[in-house]
């Protein structure tokens, strides 16, 4: 440390750091660099097409999907299953989560059941669902419903448990009805825990969607990927995977928007 004229030394700075800040262009740049590197590798013959086709080939496969109109058939079938399964699973999950959070009897009876079934990978139950609900849409929707139901239950009753009891007492002290307290205090109070649960359940739903479509589905992104894999059509397989990635990103974006709109008061 440098001595100064007056014999004093400046106090060394030792704070700062530990607060990542957004750097705008880096993300897209990495994306472009990886794809360019990959394309170059393929063109130079360093990467055999059977191991990994060039991004341009995957793009061509995607373009072919669009031209033939097959994209909308696959995507439509997948989205229908995803929306039906996720919506039903989420609604049921919120209802059951609320009853566990609010009623002692429901908590005593249902919480252990949920805890027991939650950790089972729902893919393992898929054959069972095929027998119960048939090889058609039933089993696919049921798998997604089941997969999204449990994380939603857990997130919801955790959220209900965490609502500030002081606010509930306040509601009671002003003579609010039970229903008003649930709707105006507990529901919005639990929302910050329920909405992040949506992210988890949506990710699980997409995984299960692809798995379910690999059994007895004619159309659907999962069916398309399975077929491409069995035909060793790696370009088509990659196109399917890209569709899944876009699907996941879109779902995430929708949830982020919902969160921003509903949790504006937190900001």
């Amino acid at each position, binding site marked *: 440390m440098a001595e100064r004229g007056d014999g004093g030394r400046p106090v060394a700075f030792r704070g700062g750091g530990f607060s990542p800040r957004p750097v705008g262009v880096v993300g897209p740049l990495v994306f472009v660099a990886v794809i360019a590197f990959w394309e170059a590798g393929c063109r130079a013959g360093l990467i055999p097409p059977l191991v990994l086709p060039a991004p341009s080939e995957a793009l061509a496969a995607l373009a072919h999907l669009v031209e033939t109109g097959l994209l909308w058939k696959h995507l439509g079938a997948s989205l229908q299953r995803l929306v039906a399964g996720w919506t039903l699973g989420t609604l049921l999950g919120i209802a059951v989560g609320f009853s566990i959070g609010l009623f002692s009897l429901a908590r005593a009876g249902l919480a252990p059941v949920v805890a027991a079934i939650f950790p089972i990978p729902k893919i393992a139950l898929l054959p069972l669902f095929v027998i119960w609900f048939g090889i058609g849409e039933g089993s696919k929707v049921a798998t997604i419903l089941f997969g999204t139901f449990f994380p939603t239950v857990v997130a919801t009753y955790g959220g209900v448990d965490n609502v500030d009891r002081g*606010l509930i007492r306040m509601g009671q*002290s*002003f003579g609010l*009805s039970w229903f*008003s307290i649930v709707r105006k205090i507990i529901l*919005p*109070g639990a929302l910050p825990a329920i909405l992040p649960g949506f992210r988890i359940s949506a990710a699980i739903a997409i995984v299960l969607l692809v798995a379910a479509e690999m059994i007895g589905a004619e159309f659907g992104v999962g069916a398309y990927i399975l077929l491409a894999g069995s035909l060793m059509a790696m370009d088509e397989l990659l196109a399917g995977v890209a569709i899944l990635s876009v699907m996941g990103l879109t779902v995430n974006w929708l949830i982020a928007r919902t969160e921003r709109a509903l949790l504006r008061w*937190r*900001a």
Partner: protein
Amino acid sequence: MELRLAGLHHGYGEVEVLRGIDLEIPAGRIVCIVGPSGCGKSTLLRLVGGLERPARGEVVQTGEPPPGCLNPLTYIFQDFALLPWRTVEGNVRLVLEDHGFGRAETAGIVDGVLARTHLSEFRAAFPRQLSGGMKQRVAIARALAVSPAFLLMDEPLSALDAQTRELLLDDLVDLWTRERFSGVYITHNLREAVRLGHRVVLLSRRPGTVREVLEIDLPLDARAAHARELEAHRSRLWQLLRDEAHAAELELVDG
């Protein structure tokens, strides 16, 4: 309408918190309850408003609440208890929604109490945008909206800094001078107690019993000018409280 506490006992598990509290709470006056930490002041207030059931004894309401009163026993909490997802206006509206008023009627009441608490400009703000003092003003507005017969105030100024506390104390004095509400005011701050209380009740340390009841006859709006007299009351209360507070300090929290 008046309140009478008769032989109130309360405890949590093994720990006895309150023992044999007998107290009259008259209409139109403020009763301050002071005592060392953990003496059961807040428990007492929860018993008074029916948020907790006493182990023995009862809280009796005599006479009818004034007409138009929506919620006779209304709390003002130390931590404000505002819904963070509702605006100032929405927080006030919350306590009116279950009473089946029309839109215009509700708006009239809300406008009225916001004007009385000087909050009209802040009606669209969320609680996180407000300072502690403003939050407590919103809570006061919310309490006034239901035209209470009794205001039950649980250390309403304790979460605020000293300057804000002073301002709000003046506000409460003004409010009482205008509205002549009946109040129970819990505090550990003796200055607040002698400034605001027509009657100051001193509780002993746990288990809380009534140690002393002090009547202060000075009108509330004249008290600022009688600092010396108030200081005499305060220091007498402190003499009584001091040993209790010291002994309470040395106890283990979980008894």
